[in-house]
């Protein structure tokens, strides 16, 4: 899937482009609205990631022109404005979704994924680590065949860690994912969730699957 990124800030743009590339997309970056509109109407892209504040032609104008020409290319808007009316305006102009700066890449990726209607097969529906299994479809979790009841936050934290199994995930990243990217409880609330998860998943079983990395976060590995 080819994605066009229109972002005037080079660092942010480059980060998004490279991140999308690493996630298996083909991303291209341009720095102004004029160029963005020209490329977007060319028909070579499947998705447009559009910053709203652009030189030459603003993001809103690019969006409006695109929709006026009857172009139905999915558009994900990047905005520094978190005001609801601004978002509503962008959605009314025909944007499909938005991400507020500064964003967690995970969030951007999730929204790109949703808009790109990427076949689900790329992410296996059932995540597995040793004898622990998590079904992302039915949200059922089992260890050694025995069902484990999880609360929504416990499920979200476990899912996140299992998606990135073998990698150390920071507390902040975990919190952002489980709390909708917009909640900073100020305390290490993730620690409490992990304690509860350990009780349900690792207690009395071997091998232990959830590991602490001091000062950073947690990792799930066999």
């Amino acid at each position: 899937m080819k994605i066009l990124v229109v972002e005037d800030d080079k660092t942010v743009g480059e980060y998004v482009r490279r991140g999308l590339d690493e996630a298996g997309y083909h991303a291209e970056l341009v720095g102004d609205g004029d160029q963005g509109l020209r490329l977007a109407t060319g028909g070579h892209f499947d998705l447009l990631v559009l910053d709203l504040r652009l030189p030459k032609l603003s993001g809103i104008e690019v969006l409006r022109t695109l929709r006026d020409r009857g172009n139905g290319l999915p558009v994900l808007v990047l905005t520094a404005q978190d005001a609801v009316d601004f978002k509503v305006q962008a959605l009314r102009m025909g944007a499909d979704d938005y991400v507020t700066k500064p964003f967690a890449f995970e969030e951007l990726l999730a929204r790109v994924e949703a808009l790109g209607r990427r076949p689900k097969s790329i992410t296996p529906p059932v995540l597995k680590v040793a004898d622990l299994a998590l079904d992302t479809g039915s949200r059922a979790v089992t260890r050694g065949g025995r069902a484990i009841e999880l609360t929504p936050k416990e499920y979200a934290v476990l899912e996140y860690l299992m998606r990135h199994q073998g990698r150390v995930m920071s507390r902040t990243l975990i919190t952002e994912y489980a709390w909708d990217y917009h909640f900073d409880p100020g305390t290490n609330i993730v620690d409490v969730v992990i304690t509860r998860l350990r009780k349900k998943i690792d207690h009395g079983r071997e091998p232990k699957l959830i590991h602490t990395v001091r000062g950073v976060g947690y990792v799930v590995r066999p």
Partner: protein
Amino acid sequence: MESIRGRLTLWYATALILSLAVFAVVLYFARRSASYQDLDRRIQSEADLTAGILAESYRARGILVEPDTAGRPVLIGEVAAVLEVVPDYLVLTSRDGRLLFASPDARALTFAEFERLTALVARTPPGGSRVPGQHNLRPNGPTLHYVIREIPQAGGQFGALFAGADTRSAELGLQQLVSTILVAFVIGLVPAVLVGRWLAGRALEPVDHMITEVREITDGRTLHRRLAVPMVKDELARLAETLNQMMTRLERSFAALRRFTADASHELKTPLTVVRAGVERAITRPDVPQETLAALEETLQEVNRMTELLDSLLTLARADEGRAELHREPVDLRAIVAEAGETGDLLADHAGVAIEIRTPPQPVVLAVDRSRVRQLILNLIENAVKYTPRGGNVSVRLGGDNGQVVLTVADSGIGIAPGDLPHIFDRFWRADSARTRTGERPGAGLGLAISKWIAEAHGGAIEVQSRPGRGTTFTVTFPRGDA
């Protein structure tokens, strides 16, 4: 009186009553003086007439006094018959003070009154009193105006002639005058007050108009409006101009604020995005040493904290401008409370505090901004947990009646000092840092300010009750009518 209009009407009515009263008093006394002059002229002419008759009779007959059957001297019958027709009080005495004649009115007096009348005549020195006097035949008799004179033309047969008239005849006219004035007062006052009220209303109409216009200018979006300045350069025109100038200044500062918030969003968030992007890329790389990871994690936390602070500031700045809008949709509040409740449960667990969450069995559907209300509930729960010592408890309750939805977050914590209570919803306000649990970083002091804004933006309200050492209860109410 609450309005200027009422006061003006009151003043107008008072001034009218006062001038009418002065007029009435002057009229009364002028009329009274005229009446008494008439009365005095009447008794003078009656005295003149009687003296004339007696003088004439003396010239014709000579002797005018004769003894009656009992031997007492009286005025002769023919003359007495003529004097009978003279009205009012007429008394004639002999030189030695004997009563010779009394008119019918005088004879109608009681004995005591009559005695007093004759005593008055007897007291009069020779020569009489040409100036009218006044005498009251108390207790119940009439008050008389009178003259007493000698009648030298009658050959010295008479002592004194008393002619008097009851002042009641003069007072009667005055009483009529007073009642006429009173009736005119009442009839005249009501329409006069109404006209006064109307005039005051008309004079103040432009002010009312201005009030309506100014009231419609509620926030940043309506601030470009100006009042219409009347053509005539009177006080009201100057007032309108002054208000307009003030609004121009306000609009300018609002515009500056708006520019700032828009710029701040962009100028501050873009670098934050860059920092975040770098940290995120580094932290998710597989081969990073743990020490570096810890540093990156701390940086990430700070970026988030700054982002949140910035968002809070911008939200409040936009709220001040009236531009912070809500994205309302019907939501079952129980779901939001349950979701926030899970987080609250985790926070409470971490802090060693018991938490209880109660929601009603039936749905509580309200048109609210889901993420804002969640933020509000989380803020309150977080706050409650933060200020409750280990072993305490927090209770979250959703309820209400047909009119409103009530959410309470109560804790058994350290409470808020009475002196601090009025300030807790102020921006950047923080209680003594000693209050927070040790080792915990205090917040920026915007949470409750934002909570208050969220409650009020939904047409609701937030209240706090607290007793130091006993606990604090926050109560949020949302009107159901807005749903």
